[in-house]
């Protein structure tokens, strides 16, 4: 059954149940992907997924139910289940549905033709050729893959909201695995966007060079050092700790930023912005998961907390207005809060100048196990790292298998300088994180 027919069936079922406040949220994903082994295609995947989530206000509570199968029967089932699920809820919070009739930003981007399956295959095979050619240390297991995706979201509710968005794009990645006969290492590059602008040899060379640079790397000596987080690593830290800016988390005591608006929570060189229309992000969004219009806002401006991220519920509970940051994981599940592209504003320094300022310390360009070694509630982290020693203001020997430890809330205040080399981490989704390299005045490193 098509979405429009399912929508009609849901409306009919909701009305016959006497429901007056309800919403249907629908997501459809299609992707075609190819990956490789050696000079051959290893696998080809053509996946369709998605589903619909119905939620309704019954007895003052918001009940949810979801399905991946769209039919007359499932339309009726989700309505009944959502009503039943509402009955068990106990939170005494107000519940909200967006009003219709809002105006939204125009987020259309210049469309590029998606590569055909043949073009995907041709591209990844060229990628493999380039990766083997990039360096004699490259071995089997190196892998190039490419994917095209289509992502659609539609929200309809009984208050007159009826919005839709469609995005499509292409992703290319290449993983270089290198060996010196003794040990292996790997590194990857990801590119999002039209394949016409893709520089395959450059991506291969960068991945191979990066993987090779850490072969035979030693361990950093244990101590307390100035640390530079490279753009990728800093963006990963933002990814892990972005939940501290959620008003819902703050309200529930899962973030320390409750009531801190207007206070200094970071160093003066720190400005954090959430931008739903970030230029390089593949899926600019004009509306959030509740259908509220989105906009760009500073969360932290020169170290001062300006706002937390809100959806309708948190905003009402805290006497604010929504920041248009309602989000859902997939089509099902509750409405939560997430940034679109959260970025740390770049500074004026080049990375070389940042290194010079660090003097002696550690440059970290890889952080591992962020889901485990970082506690998004307390802000504590102790993370597997790799990078380079900094000696006399220059990157010197490669180091890996050590940890860096600290606390995110403290780290925001410990940043002493920000470089100008901002990079976006986005794997082809609505949410992304971008950061330049930052210098942090002193963190614990555990190595040898």
């Amino acid at each position, binding site marked *: 059954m098509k979405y429009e027919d399912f929508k009609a069936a849901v409306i009919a079922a909701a009305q016959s149940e006497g429901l007056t406040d309800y919403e249907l949220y629908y997501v459809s994903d299609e992707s075609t992907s190819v990956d490789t082994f050696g000079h*051959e295609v290893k696998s080809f*995947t*053509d996946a369709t997924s*998605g589903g619909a989530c119905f939620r309704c206000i019954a007895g003052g509570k918001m009940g949810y139910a979801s399905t991946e199968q769209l039919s007359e029967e499932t339309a009726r089932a989700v309505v009944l289940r959502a009503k039943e699920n509402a009955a068990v*809820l106990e939170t005494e919070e107000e519940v909200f549905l967006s009003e219709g009739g809002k105006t939204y930003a125009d987020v259309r981007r210049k469309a590029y033709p998606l590569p055909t399956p043949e073009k995907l295959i041709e591209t990844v095979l060229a990628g493999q050729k380039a990766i083997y050619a990039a360096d004699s240390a490259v071995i089997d297991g190196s892998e190039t893959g490419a994917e095209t995706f289509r992502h659609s979201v539609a929200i309809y509710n009984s208050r007159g909201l009826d919005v839709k968005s469609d995005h499509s794009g292409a992703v290319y990645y290449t993983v270089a695995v290198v060996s010196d006969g003794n040990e292996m290492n790997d590194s990857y590059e990801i590119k999002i966007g039209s394949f016409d602008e893709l520089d395959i040899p450059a991506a291969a060379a960068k991945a191979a060079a990066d993987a090779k640079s850490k072969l035979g790397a030693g*361990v950093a000596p244990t101590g307390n050092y100035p640390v530079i987080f490279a753009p990728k690593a800093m963006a990963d830290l933002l990814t892990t700790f972005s939940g501290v800016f959620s008003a819902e988390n703050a309200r*529930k*005591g899962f973030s320390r930023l409750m009531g801190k608006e207007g206070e200094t929570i970071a160093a003066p060189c720190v400005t954090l912005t959430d931008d739903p229309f970030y230029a390089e992000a593949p899926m600019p969004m004009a509306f959030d998961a509740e259908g509220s219009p989105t906009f760009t806002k500073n969360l932290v401006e020169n170290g001062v907390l300006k706002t937390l991220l809100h959806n309708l519920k948190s905003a009402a509970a805290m006497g604010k207005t929504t920041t248009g940051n309602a989000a859902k994981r997939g089509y099902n599940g509750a409405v939560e809060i997430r940034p679109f592209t959260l970025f740390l504003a770049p500074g004026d320094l080049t990375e070389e100048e940042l290194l010079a300022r660090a003097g002696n310390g550690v440059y970290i360009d890889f952080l591992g*196990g962020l889901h485990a070694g970082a506690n998004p509630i307390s802000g504590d982290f102790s993370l597997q790292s790799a990078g380079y020693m900094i000696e006399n203001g220059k990157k010197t020997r490669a180091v890996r298998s050590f940890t860096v430890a600290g606390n995110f809330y403290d780290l925001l205040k410990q940043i002493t300088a920000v470089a100008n080399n901002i990079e976006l981490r986005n794997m082809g989704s609505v949410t992304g994180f971008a950061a330049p390299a930052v210098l942090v005045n002193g963190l614990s490193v555990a190595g040898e």
Partner: protein
Amino acid sequence: MIARDVCERVLQRAASTGADYAEIFAEYTVDNGIRMITGKVDAVDDTVIAGAGIRVFKGLRSVMASTVDTSEAGLMRCAERAAEALGQGDAAMTIRLRERLFGDVHPVRVAPVSVPNDEKVSVLREADAAARNYDACIKRTSCSLISVDHSILIATSEGLYTQDRQIRTRLVMTAVAEKNGETQTGSANPGYRMGMEMFEGLVDPTAVGIEAARQAAVMAGAGYCPAGVMPVAIGNGFGGVIFHEACGHSLEASSVAYGVSQFAGKLGQKIANEKVTAIDDGTIPNAWGSINIDDEGTPARKNVLIEKGILKSYMIDKMGGRRMNMESTGSARRESYAYATTSRMTNTYIAPGEDSDESIIASMEYGLYAKKMGGGSVNPATGEFNFAVNEGYLVRNGKICEPVRGASLVGKGSEAIQKIDMVSAELELGQGMCGSSSGSIPVNVGEPMIRVSSITVGGR
């Protein structure tokens, strides 16, 4: 779910461009979760996941197409997409399916879908109250009851037509303690491949609440763990995550078959300390990571991976087996129809040894006792891993001393398993969700207490 004759026609279509293997994996899953935050039910997740994935192989090449439309017409279109992606040409494969019943060694008495919400809420209420009554420092809790009713159907061009129903229940509890403005969390997350009868004796919600609260309260009073290289005793149960990450992933065909593993080509060689015997066993009755059949329809089995330090077996799926010239070990798993199957773990543990917990602690002059581990990750190519220590204590002169927080362990799998030089006798399993290319799947990790003679401890 899908009739046998429909499967025959769909498989024939899927194999019509020269495939040497075709497979349908269809599922109908009811995913249910009720969450309570600090005493109040705050969310109910209720999702039906249903669809099919069709895979075709030709030599070492695999194609997968998936669809949410499981009508015959929808499956035929999906089969066509797979066939077209595999190649051109006209080939005919006659497929006659025969239904195989593998039985169920994981009996379930009370299907969670049939239990009303308020009965589930009473379990949450009990766990929540126990946690909050434990100590005044416990300020908040989050507690979820998760139940999954996952019915699968597998039909292959080898003639197999079979179904399985996998029911799992889990109580996920987090307690948050506050002392002197510091916040720490503790958790306990028991789960089994069974229904709501899990709470009739096997899992006590009160004990779960208390355990989460105890950890949070201890850690809220703890100072930071010092950094350095030292011996570490890792407690039983979820401590087995160290083997899961440090070695388990590197023994999966998905890395071994492509040479991207520190243990590729090392069958029969000594890769670990002789104290280490490690097993992946999908057949443990009602265990969280157990299966009757894997997601390619191969019956689950008990695979001895390492015996007294010698590498005995990898974990292999069908495509991995083709590359490695080896049979499947019943290790093919996927989160859902939308993911392409690959080799994964089930219940993976270090077998009991002959040391005692006491002798392990007593052997350490200065080190860390990692009583409860958190999650971790590994890069199978380099073997570099990391884990979080959720509850740790410093050990001095053979005695457990003050608790320390914020510790992590990093190292290289191939080196760390050489350094496991003491293994206690009391095995326990712990539950987790393991994420990899075929999605997030339930697995058990496990071990008795072990000692790693030296490892890098991250702290400050």
